[in-house]
Structures are given as C-alpha cells and as structure tokens.
C-alpha cells in the first residue's frame, strides 16, 4: 500500500491573499457581461467560441457605431 506523501510545504507563515475577493475568470458570471461585448457562438470543428463588440466597449461617453451597417466593427487599441 503506497505511503501517504507528507506535505512538502509548511503552513503559510502569513496570509498571501484575501480569498473573499472575486476570481477574475468568474467576473462575467458574478457581474454580468460587460457593456459592449456579446458572444456569437462557436466556429470550426473544435467549436471555438467567438464574440463581437459594439462601440460601447471602448467608450462610456457617446458610443458611435459606423454609419454603414456593412462596415465591420474594428477595435480601437
């Protein structure tokens, strides 16, 4: 019967972080989708997720969409 491995690291001498704050990867679940971004399904055989944005993603002050609906939505840095 295999021996139980002894824990290698000793108990933390000081707390490294407050666990009560949120996890970055779950913010969308807890705080909702951020304004200006929406998911648009999966692509390819591997069904990789896709998503698009509106102008609201880049600005909270008077977002303006391109006037021609044919124009793609291009991101600003």
């Amino acid at each position, binding site marked *: 019967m295999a021996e139980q491995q002894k824990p290698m690291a000793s108990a933390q001498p000081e707390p490294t972080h407050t666990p009560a704050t949120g996890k970055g990867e779950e913010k969308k679940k807890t705080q909702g989708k951020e304004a200006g971004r929406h998911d*648009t399904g999966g692509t390819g055989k591997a069904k990789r997720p896709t998503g698009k944005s509106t102008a609201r993603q880049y600005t909270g002050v008077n977002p303006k969409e391109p006037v021609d609906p044919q124009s793609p939505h291009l991101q600003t840095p």
Partner: protein
Amino acid sequence: MTTQTTREETPAQPPQLVEMSWDPMTRIVGSLGIYTKIDFKQRKIVEAYSSSHIFRGYSLFMQGKDPRDAHFITSRICGICGDNHATCSVYTQNMAYGVKPPALGEWIINLGEAAEYMFDHNIFQENLVGVDFCEQMVKETNPAVLEKANTTEAPHAREHGYRTIGDIMRSLNPFTGEFYREALHVSRYTREAFCLMEGRHVHPSTLYPGGVGTVATVQVFTDYLVRLMKYVEWMKKVVPMHDDLFDFWYQALPGYEQVGYRQTLLGCWGSWQDPDVCDYDYRTMDKWGRAMFVTPGVIVDGELVTTSLVDINLGIRILLGSSYYEDWDNQRMFVDRDPLGNPVDRRHPWNQTTIPRPQKRDFNDKYSWTMSPRWYDQRTGKYLALDTGGGPIARLWSTALAGLVNLGGLVESTGHSVIIRLPKSATKPAVEFEWKIPQWSNAIERNRARTYFQAYAAAVALHCVEKALDEVRAGHTKTWSDFTVPKEAIGCGFHEAVRGVLSHHMVIENGKIANYHPYPPTPWNGSVRDIYGTPGPYEDAVQNTPIFEENGPDSFKGIDIMRAVRSFDPCLPCGVHMYLGEGKELQTVLSPTFGVMP
C-alpha cells in the same frame, strides 16, 4: 526499478589522457560546466560529463499554490524562453479546466510563439554561437582554416553580400562585426513583435488560461506584419550565408561531421495549435497533435516511430541512476490511468515525487542534479535517451518525415524534406528554401537546421497573421473564454520550447496544485547516465568528438567541444528548475582541472 547495474570500473588510463574542464560555459543561458578527459595523442575526447551548479526548487514551492498562477510562475523558469513555459502551462490548464480559447486568441498565441522562435534562434545563432565561427575565434584556434577562408569565394555571395568565407567570419566578430550588430537589432524588433501579441518579454503579461488579454486591433497585426516582413527579408540573406559557412567547414576540416555526432534519437512534441481542430481535450489529443504546424514525433535512426501525442505522453519515463535523488517507488501514485483509460507508469511525470539526496559528486556513481528523462520504446523495451538537437533539427526532421504539414504552400512537408516559401519583400524577390534531412545528427547540422527553422517560423507567422486578420475583419473581438477551476483535475501540455521538447504535467487536488512537473528540453539533452548505463546526449555527443583545434594542451581552448555543446543550445535554468533540496547536506567535489592523470 531499484536495481542498479554496477558500472564497470574505468579502465586504466593511458598516459596521455588530460583532464580538462570548462566552468562556466559562456554564451549559453544558465550554469553549465563541462568536464572531460582528452587524449591529445589520438586527438579525441574520451569521456565527458556535464554538471550544473544552481538549484531553485519550482516543483516544491508550487505545491499547494493556485493552479491559475502556474503559467505566471513557470514562465520564470527561463529568462529567454519563459513564454514557451507560460504557453505550455496554459495548454495544460486549458485541458485541466476544460476551456477553449477563441480562435482569435489562439492565433495571437501562435504569433507570439513564432516571434519567440524568430527572436531566440536569431540571438543565439548570430550573437552566441556565431562567435565560435568568427574571425577572432578562428584566428586563435585554427589559423590555417582562417587563411583558407580568406581565399575561398562564398558560393552565394550575390544573395548575402559577403565575397569570401573570411568576410563572413569577420562580420561575426562580437561588437565590431557588422552582421553581429545587425543581428542584435533584429533581436529587438522580433521581441517588439512578441510584445505586440503578449505584452512584454520574456514573461508575458497578457497570457491567461482560456486565451489572451490582448486587444485584437488591426493595428496590432499590421505592426507585427511590418516587422515580420523585415525578418523575411533578413532570412533571404541569413540562410544562404550560413549554408556557405557550414559547407565550407566540412571542406576545410574533413571529418568535422564527427564533431558533436550522435545516433539519431530525436524527440519533438509539436508547435502551434490549429484552432479549427484543437479542443484541448486529452481524448482527441492525437488528432489535434497531428494538426499542429510542427508535427510531433519520435525518430529512431531515421525512422519516424510515432506522431501520436498520447503515445508520446505515455512513453515518458523519468529514470534515476546518476542523480542525487531517492527513488519514489513507494510513494503515492497521483494518476493511475489517463482519460482514455490507458495505465500510467509510476515513473511518469504525473506520478513523480522528487526526493533529493544531496551528496558528494562521484563521476563513477552520482554526479548531478539532472535526472534522466527517457522515452520507453514499446517495440524494443528500451529506454531511449532522446535529444532535441537544440530544437530545430528535431522539429524539421519530424515534420519532414510525417508529410502532414502544408500551410497554403508557405511551409510544406514532402516526406523527406521541408519546403519553405517566403514571398517578395522590400528589395528581394520571393524565394524557396528546402531543408533536406541530413546524413548526420551532429553539431554543424543542428546549427544549419536552426537557421532554416528561423525561416520556417517566419513562414508560419505569415499564415497566422492572415488568419488573425480574417477574424478581425469578420468583426470578432473575443480573445478569451471564461472557465471555472475544478476541485480535482489533471492536465498536460505538449509544446516545443525554442530548444526542443517541452511538457508540463499537472495534478489538481482540492482546487490547488498537488503535483506539477515541467520537462523542458535541457533535462533531456543534459541528462546523465541512467540506471541502465545509457549516457545523456551532451555526454554522448561530446565523447568521441575528434579534436581539430590547432592549439596544444597548454593553450587548448576546447573550441570543438564548445561547438558540440553549443549546437544543443543549452539552457540550464530549464535544466535545473525543479531540483530542490530541503536543507540537507550538499557536497560536491570537482575533478582536478588541468591535471595530467598519473
């Protein structure tokens, strides 16, 4: 697993054997000392040992930490290829958490890795290895060769602009050589390209499990493309220049094929994911492994034994024998079976427990902190000491034999070679290069492959930029997918660090890291004699290397040994990242240097 074969007593040394050591090796990354016994009469290296002097303990201090920190932490294993670790770690985490990045995110990571290959191979080849072939060095070690070089016309002078081989050598002189300086400049704009994709170099800021945080603008890809095209132009000079230099070497020093020569035993774990195929699920790993833009493979004596990442995974064994560790045969197993139900060996990284036993160094017994990773060949029952040849040679060899890769003609595998097609650039027309499988796995061919792979990476990057821009023009902006970290999970990642095979294996228990073992290329290449007596690749390749240097024992530099070792592109922080001690006694004794054996 604990029986040790008793090593034969070293036979009595003939009187002209000299012990020599080079510690530290320079123009590599990391701490490495080479210890040899040289027969100056026969002009051969008779014995070689490699040893490293730095211990940090990643596998120890990562235990109990949050798995989402794994790529930030493991990036710091290496200061030149850290992003390779970070990438492999996110591959591992993606598998463990069951998350798939958006295709756009995957293209960004692919472009980052392409930039890393373009940067790293360039700086290593031209500013570190190149010095071994520069005029200053050759004057000090092989003056007759320099004389010959000065009167030998370079066959491709029209493409690279250097009339004689001697002119090439002068241009490689550190700091004063024009090519050396231009290469430094190239190493900067390639890193800028990396920063455009992943924020900063060497430890990326925008890489996360699930994708990237990079904002995918048209600007970011155009800026990358502008730098990429400069590199494409540069390659049209660099490839023929190195072919001329290396071909000259064989002519000027017949027999140089033996320098750094080793039996062809190569491993390649694959580079670049195709987001159309890869879903990070272990159960389909064979399929998406074969869709990678460098095909994974194990090559034994010119035969491609497998291209299956599952087979590759299950065949990894970590052996001991000459390393300062106790065996873990009565420790717990973390993983009994892989997600396909295949049994996982106790000596597999998922099940490894590292128990250090620091002790005096004895070249006849235990002499290093490096373990002995091997690949178990089911066909023969042998534990193969695979090497990566520094990375490019194994990647090109595997891709060539597999016959799978074809990226719109930019790179194409023919079954016996790899064709690389670079488009027209600012002042030069389109070119086609063909890397043919060489006759030998030796120092010169490892170096030649490195130059060709630089061009390969540029061609792959051209493909990825186009794909990324397609996504952007379709209005896609999502570069990251959310996930939840499970309480219990396992994951593995297979990638090619610049220098070769890179795997990460992780076990999560109770939401924390229970076990994490990265295996970069250097533990494979720099491994030591295992319990079956098989030496590691550096040792193997250096031993039986003939001496061409014109200096006698008193002023001997060991340049042929240096060329042999540097051809593997040693990167020792990766070699010793995981070696740890718990405050126990650590004694080592060096062999006497520059002494003549009695």
